[in-house]
C-alpha cells in the first residue's frame, strides 16, 4: 500500500467542519473528512447518515452552510459542479450519466470537444485522445463504439475515462460494482489499483465489506450527520464496521432454520420454462413457507426467469402451475390475478412513479379496494396507506410528499409495502436490497423470513451471496439460462462454496 502522507504532500481532499441543513433539519454537523493523495478511502454509513450530502457538497451540487474545503492544500469554494470539476473532482455515477446514442469518444469529450478550424469538432483527435485515456487505464474499449451497444461494465469504464479526460485527481465511486458480474468487478478493482498507483485518490462508497477490505486503505463511517470514525482497515474488523454503520449488533445476516419443514404444499410449479435465449428448460417448485434463492452471474437468466413468472416476457414453452392449476401468464395482470407479485430489480424505473406521493404509489395496486361506487374513497385510502407505512416501518414525515424525496432504503420499503398490500401468495424479489444500507437490509431480510412464516412462498434473486445464504432454504443456480444446480441450504457451507457453484467450478 503506497500511501504517503508526510508533511510535504497535502491531502488531496480536506473537508473541515462541514455543516449543512435543509429546511432547518441538520443533515451534516461539523464533519471532518480527508483523503490522502493516491489513497482509496471507503465512505460508509446508514440511511440518512449524510454520505450523499457530503459527497454532493464535494461535487459542488450543494453548497455547504459552514466549514472549509481544501483540494491539494488550496482553499476552494464550489458554487457549481463546474467549479468542482475544474478543481479535479470526478464522479462515477451510480446511475450512469452517458448519452446512449453517442459513441464512447463523443461521451468522453461531451462539452469539451477538441475543436479545429472554424469551430468544427475534430472527431479523429477525440477518438485518439480517448484511446490514450483508455491506454493509461490499461483497459480495452473502442472509442468509436456506440455506448448503447456496450455492456454495463463498459459504461462504467467510459464514465471513469470521462472523469480522467478532465484530469480528475479525485474520483468518487458510488456502489460501482452494483451492476457488475464478479469478473467485471475484479477488473474494476485492478483498475482502481492502477489509478491509485498514478496518485489518483478514490472515494469508494460501498455497502459490501469484502470489496472495502480488498481495495480501500482507510474507512470513514458517518452516523447521524457526524463522523463516527476514520480508521485504517488493518485496524478495524468487519463486525466493528457493521456495528458502526447500524449502531447495534445484528443477527439478521445469519440463517435461521424454518420452524417446520414437513407438511408443505406445492405453491408454484414451473415445468420446462423456455423464453427467448435467456431462459431454457427451467423446472422447479416452490412450497408454502419456503424461500428459494436464485443465484447466477449477470446474464445467467435470473431476471429473465422472474419476468417469465410475472408474465412480462412470454413463454415459448413450458407450464406454470399455481396451487396445482395451470395458469396462463400472458401479462402482469394475469400474474397478479394468480397471486404472484414481483418486486422489480430497478425500483426507480420499474417500481415507483417517482414524482407521485408515497401514498399514491402505495395505493396504486390497491385502488380496487378503496372504491366507493365509481369513486375512490380518500379517507379509506389514507388509512390503508398509513397502515402499510406503519407495518413496514417506512420512515416518511408526510406521505403526501413525492416518493423521490425518500432515501433508497425507504423507497425500497415503499415498493415492498405496495406489493404486500395486495396479499400475494408468491413473492418474487429481484435484488431486494440493492443500494440500501445495512440497517434497512437487515429489516428487509427479517421481513422476508416473516412472510415465509406466514405461509407465503418467496423467490429471492441476489448477487450477494451472504444475503442469499441468510434467507434461502434452497438455492437454485442458473447458468446460461439453464438450471445448473439445486442446492439445499445445509449443503452450502459458506459463501465461497456458493460462489464456486455459481462460477461453475466443482461438481
Amino acid at each position, binding site marked *: 500500500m503506497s500511501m504517503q502522507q508526510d508533511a510535504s504532500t497535502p491531502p488531496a481532499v480536506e473537508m473541515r467542519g462541514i455543516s449543512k441543513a435543509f429546511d432547518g*433539519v441538520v443533515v451534516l454537523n461539523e464533519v471532518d473528512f480527508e483523503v490522502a493523495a493516491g489513497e482509496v478511502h471507503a465512505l460508509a454509513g446508514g440511511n440518512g447518515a449524510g454520505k450523499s450530502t457530503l459527497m454532493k457538497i464535494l461535487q459542488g451540487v450543494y453548497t455547504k452552510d459552514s466549514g472549509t474545503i481544501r483540494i491539494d492544500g488550496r482553499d476552494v469554494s464550489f458554487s457549481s459542479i463546474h467549479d468542482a470539476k475544474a478543481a479535479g473532482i470526478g464522479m462515477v455515477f451510480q446511475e450512469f450519466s452517458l448519452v446512449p446514442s453517442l459513441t464512447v469518444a463523443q461521451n468522453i469529450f461531451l462539452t469539451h470537444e477538441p475543436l479545429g478550424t472554424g469551430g468544427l469538432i475534430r472527431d479523429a483527435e477525440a477518438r485518439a485522445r480517448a484511446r490514450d485515456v483508455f491506454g493509461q487505464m490499461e483497459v480495452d474499449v473502442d472509442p468509436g463504439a456506440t455506448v448503447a451497444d456496450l455492456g454495463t461494465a463498459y459504461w462504467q469504464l467510459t464514465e471513469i475515462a470521462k472523469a480522467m479526460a478532465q484530469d480528475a485527481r479525485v474520483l468518487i465511486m458510488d456502489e460501482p460494482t452494483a451492476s457488475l458480474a464478479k469478473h467485471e468487478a475484479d477488473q474494476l478493482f485492478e483498475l482502481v489499483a492502477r489509478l491509485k498507483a498514478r496518485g489518483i485518490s478514490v472515494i469508494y462508497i460501498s455497502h459490501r465489506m469484502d470489496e472495502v477490505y480488498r481495495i480501500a486503505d482507510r474507512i470513514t463511517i458517518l452516523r447521524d450527520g457526524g463522523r463516527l470514525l476514520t480508521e485504517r482497515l488493518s485496524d478495524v474488523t468487519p463486525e466493528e464496521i457493521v456495528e458502526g454503520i447500524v449502531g447495534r449488533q445484528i443477527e439478521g445476516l445469519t440463517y435461521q432454520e424454518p420452524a417446520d419443514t414437513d407438511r408443505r404444499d406445492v405453491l408454484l410449479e414451473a415445468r420446462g420454462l423456455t423464453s427467448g435465449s435467456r431462459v431454457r428448460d427451467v423446472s422447479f417448485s416452490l412450497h408454502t413457507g419456503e424461500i428459494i434463492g436464485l443465484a447466477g452471474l449477470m446474464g445467467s437468466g435470473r431476471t429473465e426467469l422472474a419476468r417469465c413468472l410475472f408474465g412480462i416476457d412470454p413463454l415459448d414453452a413450458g407450464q406454470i402451475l399455481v396451487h396445482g392449476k395451470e395458469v396462463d401468464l400472458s*401479462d402482469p395482470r394475469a*400474474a397478479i390475478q394468480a397471486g404472484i407479485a414481483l418486486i422489480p430489480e430497478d425500483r426507480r*424505473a420499474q417500481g415507483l412513479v417517482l414524482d407521485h406521493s408515497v401514498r399514491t404509489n402505495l395505493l396504486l395496486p390497491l385502488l380496487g379496494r378503496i372504491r366507493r361506487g365509481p369513486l375512490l374513497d380518500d379517507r379509506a385510502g389514507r388509512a390503508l396507506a*398509513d397502515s402499510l407505512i406503519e407495518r413496514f416501518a417506512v420512515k416518511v414525515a408526510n406521505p403526501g410528499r413525492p416518493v423521490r424525496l425518500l432515501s433508497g432504503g425507504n423507497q425500497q420499503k415503499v415498493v415492498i409495502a405496495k406489493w404486500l398490500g395486495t396479499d400475494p401468495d408468491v413473492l418474487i424479489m429481484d435484488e431486494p436490497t440493492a443500494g440500501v444500507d445495512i440497517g434497512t437490509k437487515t429489516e428487509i431480510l427479517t421481513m422476508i423470513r416473516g412472510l415465509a412464516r406466514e405461509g407465503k412462498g418467496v423467490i429471492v434473486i441476489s448477487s450477494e451471496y451472504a444475503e442469499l445464504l441468510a434467507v434461502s432454504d434452497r438455492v437454485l443456480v442458473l447458468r446460461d439460462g439453464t438450471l445448473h444446480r439445486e442446492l439445499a441450504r445445509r449443503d452450502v457451507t459458506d459463501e465461497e462454496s456458493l460462489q464456486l457453484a455459481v462460477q461453475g467450478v466443482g461438481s
Partner: protein
Amino acid sequence: MTNTSTAPTRRGAGAVAARPSRLAGLDWRRYVIYIGFVVVFLFFAVLLGDEGFLSANNLLNILRQTATISVIAVGMTYVIACAEIDLSVGSVAGLASVVTAMALSHWGLVPGIVAGLAVGLLVGSINGGLVAGLGIPSFLVTLGMLGIAVGVAQWITASAPQPILSYAYNLVFGSGNLGPIPGLVVWMVIVVSVGAVVLAKTRFGRQVLATGGNRTAAEFTGINTKRIKFQVLLLSSTVAALAGMLYAGRLQSGRFQWGAGDELSAIAAVILGGTSLFGGSGSVIGTLFGALLISLINNGLILAGLDASQQQVVRGAIIILAVALARKK
C-alpha cells in the same frame, strides 16, 4: 393554512424524520394559474372598467368563448397527463360539425347527434389503436389525422357550409340559455366537472396519471397501459367531436373550419393549468382556468383596442411568462 389543520395524529411510529414547516412546503408554483387569472382579471377590471369589461354581458361572453376550447382541453388534459399528445382535436371538431349537420338534414335530430359522436369515437379508435396497438408515437399519428379529418370534412361538403335548420338541435347545442346562463356554459360546466372528478377521484384517473408518470412501473403494477393510452385518445377525440357539435349549434351550421387551430389553444390551456408536458400530473380545474385566462386576455385586448396582430404577440408573451413562472425548479 396553518400547521394545525392537516397534521394527522394516528400515523404513529413511522412518522419521524424531517418535518419542515408546512407553509414553507407550500408550493406556490402550483397555483400560478389561479394567481395569474386573478391578477389579469383585476388588471383589466381597473384598466377597462369604463370599456364595459365588468358588465354581465361581457363576462358571460368570455365564458361563452371559453366553452368549446375548455371542452376540448379537458380531453387534452387526460392525453397530456398520460404523456401523449393529440393534435387532431381541432379538425375532429370541424369534421364532427359537418357530419352532424349533414346527418341532421338527411335523417333527423337523433341520427345527427349520434353521427357527430360517432365521428369522435371512430377517429379516437383509430388514433388510439395506432398509438397503443402499433406503438406509433401519438405526435405522428394525430398530426396525420389532423390532415385527414379536415380533408374529409372539406371533401364531403365540397368546402360548403352545411346549415342546420333544426331548432331543437341549435337550442340544446349552444344557442339556447338555461335561465340567464348560456347553454354553452352549461355544457362546459358539465364536461369540466365530470372530467375533474374522474381524473382526481377514480381508479381510471389514477391509472392515467401512473401511466404518464412511469409507464414501466405502471405496467409492472398490473395496469394495462396500452388500454389506458387507447382510452385517453378515444376520450380526447370524443369530447373534441362534442365541441364540434357545440360549434355547429352555436353557429347553426357545420363547416370544416370550425375548430381549426384549437389544438394549440387547448394544449396551451392544459400546460398553463399546471399539467406536466411530460405526463404524470394533471388538473382539469387548472385547465379550465388556463382556458379562461386565454379568453380573458383575448377579450381584454380587444376591448383595449389592439388589433389582431398585436393581440397575438401579447397573448403569446403572457403564455410563455405564465409557464415560466409555474416551472418546477
